[in-house]
């Protein structure tokens, strides 16, 4: 019977060893699964021919259908232009800037469309930026529970912390453990099917409906009139004076920094404020923020398409600040029409 136990242990160890080797070899993919922005970076790397990149929060994630946009752009300009929606939910300044630094190295990229809305302005700890040079993020140690924090740190705590760190740094399976979770592992599928299925489909609400919704969209007749973004061009700087007091400086500075990253790489940066329902125009102070964006866009010589005030009607929204499937198709089409002159 001992031989059965030995066989069991040997096979167990061999499989574990093989898994460790596999994870080590494919570390960059497993690493990419540990954070949503890393996944976007990896998707962009796998599509180097991308020319237009959208960056923003869940509002942009819901507002842009990259397939519809490219198709519409092609019909307007006659050029095949590949676009990618790099927006993610719960974005923060750190992830924003990290993604921008890496995307700016893409030689094919010519245009970057930045979302200009309050959610894209969140501050955060600069974990990603700090680690940018290493191109790797170490797992943050778990926050100790109330009992642990209340307890004075003793030898046992120090020992366990050191042991935990050592194990995490030495064993790839442990280092990338988050990527072994069932829900995260499914992102491998997202990564590998990114060329055929819009990878954003999986992170939007109403996954099933998104999957089976048609990308063919016919513009309602009277809607194009309603949908007239307020376009601020760099040449119209005299027409709209910059806001005197930019109180939200800590916010818009994030967007300035990101604009700067792409501008320095010779890419054209376009700012777009996605549409919100009428109820949000004043409630969320969207229009107040818009003034800041306008002023800042002037400074950076960027175009600013303010669609926040477009009165689309509730049928195009899934909630006051996010478009639904129909709204996405509409907005992607209209935006492609609007931006066609840049290509």
């Amino acid at each position, binding site marked *: *019977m*001992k031989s*059965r*136990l030995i*066989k*069991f242990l040997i*096979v*167990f160890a061999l*499989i*574990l060893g093989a*898994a460790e080797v596999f994870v080590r070899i494919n570390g960059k993919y497993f690493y990419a699964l540990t954070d949503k922005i890393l996944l976007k970076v990896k998707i962009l790397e796998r599509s180097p021919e991308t020319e237009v990149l959208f960056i923003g929060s869940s509002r942009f994630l819901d507002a842009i259908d990259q397939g519809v946009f490219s198709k519409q752009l092609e019909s307007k300009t006659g050029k095949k232009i590949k676009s990618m929606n790099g927006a993610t939910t719960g974005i923060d300044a750190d992830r924003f800037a990290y993604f921008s630094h890496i995307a700016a190295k893409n030689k094919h990229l010519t245009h970057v469309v930045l979302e200009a809305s309050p959610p894209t302005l969140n501050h955060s700890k600069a974990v990603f930026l700090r680690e940018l040079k290493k191109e790797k993020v170490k797992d943050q140690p*778990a*926050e*100790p*529970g*109330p*009992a*642990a924090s*209340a*307890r004075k740190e*003793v030898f*046992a*705590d120090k*020992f*366990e912390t050191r*042991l*935990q760190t050592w*194990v995490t740094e030495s064993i790839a*399976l*442990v280092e990338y*453990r*988050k990527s*072994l*979770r*069932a829900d995260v592992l499914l992102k491998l599928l997202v990564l590998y099917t990114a060329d055929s299925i819009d990878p954003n489909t999986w992170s939007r609400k109403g996954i099933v409906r998104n999957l089976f919704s048609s990308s063919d969209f016919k513009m309602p007749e009277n809607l194009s009139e309603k949908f007239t973004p307020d376009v601020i061009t760099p040449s119209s700087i005299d027409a709209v004076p910059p806001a005197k007091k930019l109180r939200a400086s800590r916010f818009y500075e994030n967007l300035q920094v990101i604009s700067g990253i792409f501008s320095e790489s010779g890419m054209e940066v376009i700012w777009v404020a996605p549409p919100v329902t009428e109820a949000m125009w004043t409630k969320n102070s969207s229009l107040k923020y818009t003034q800041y964006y306008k002023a800042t866009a002037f400074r950076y010589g960027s175009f600013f398409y303010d669609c926040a005030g477009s009165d689309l009607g509730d049928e195009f929204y899934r909630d006051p600040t996010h478009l639904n499937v129909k709204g996405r198709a509409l907005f992607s089409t209209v935006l492609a029409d609007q931006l066609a002159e840049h290509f």
Partner: protein
Amino acid sequence: MLFNSITFVLFHLMFVTLYWATKSLRIRQVLLLLSSVIFYGWYYWPALILLGVSMMANYGFSRWIEAASAKKKILTIGVLANLCSLSFFKYSAFIADNVVAMLGAVGMSLEAPEMNSWLPLGISFYTFQIIGYLVDISRGEVKAERNFLVFGVFKCFYAQLVAGPIVRAKDLIPQLNIRQVFNSRNFQLGIYFMLAGLAIKICIADTLAQFVNHGFGDPGALETGTAWLTLYGFAFQILSDFWGYSTVAIGLGLMYGIKLPLNFNLPYLASSLRDFWRRWHITLSEWLRDYLYIPLGGNRRWQNRNLFLTMLLGGLWHGASWNFVIWGAGHGIWLALERISPTIFPKKKFFQWLKIVLVFHGVCLLWVFFRAGEEELRAARDLAREGVTGLQVSLDYFKALFGAPYTQSDSPPETLIFILLGFIAFMAFLGKSLTDRRFLEWGLARQVSLCILLLFLIIAYADARLDFIYFVF
């Protein structure tokens, strides 16, 4: 030391290796005691003083009871000494607060004295275990153990010291007194139990804990659908937390060649409350039956009173809060009612399932008091939440369950639904393999793939070091 830490895994593997590397029974006993002592004093070594004193005192009591002619008197002293120690550490603040409140009600204003706030880990479990041992000696069912090493391991074997199973002397001591022969099947089963228990704890219990803590932390904000889902979440959290712990404990024991009793047997499939207690925390139920219910009179006289008192005290054992008393009383009343009420359900399969569903929901509703009591204990350790009482939390929670109108916007957290379904699928997958030895009958491929899967789940989800629920008790 927490079972779900890397330190513990290495610690256990080291001592298991040393244990089997030596053939000397005495050295093995020393290793078991040493490992248990290190385990207990790992975070807070002064706890060892209490453990040591208790160990020596009870060793003395056991020998004294055996030698004395008036066994009952010595037994009473021994039991009282243990209960005093338990009361001091666990119930002194509760008793003081209630005495002060009662005196206040009759017009005597007093300030509650500053009572002990340190609850030694596992004190409820090892106190019950040792009381059972002393009673068994007085009844002549076991002999007092003369070898202090063996007695020490019986008192504090690290596999089950903190949260059970509560082991009987007649089951454990003989296993410690013989030189175990390495049994590869037991060892393999031990690995499986250890992995399965940790996976249940880490993947299910800890994940559910996030939702449950949120829900019970502010029950007033819950809407009906979410409140029910959170309650189901707790029902499965406490099961997977405690079952996970017990399964790990059994696995650890098996790796030393020591068999510990099963503590759970698919309790939510019980078709009556009586059946539930035969499946839930089995070793505690048996302890309560043998050392409380039967001495109170058992089935011989005043059966309903005995049932009620047993469950009431069983409830109080869980924690120093009125909530646990109400929880125990609720179970006591239900058991008594169940005994006297006629069978109304036909013996058809549908009705059997209906009974299971009804029992499950009844148990869930009583869990509200239990979890709210736990919330009170947690709040007592958190200055920012001073004044939170279990009764208020229970009341708010019941309001959320039955009072809050169901609204269209009441969309229960999808993740919680997925986790609950995941738990059911997971348990259906592991199924009876956690209650018997069928794992050993499986082919090598199935065994290895299941163990690898469990290990990956543990690695993937082992993010935060969360205590086991029963550590609070």
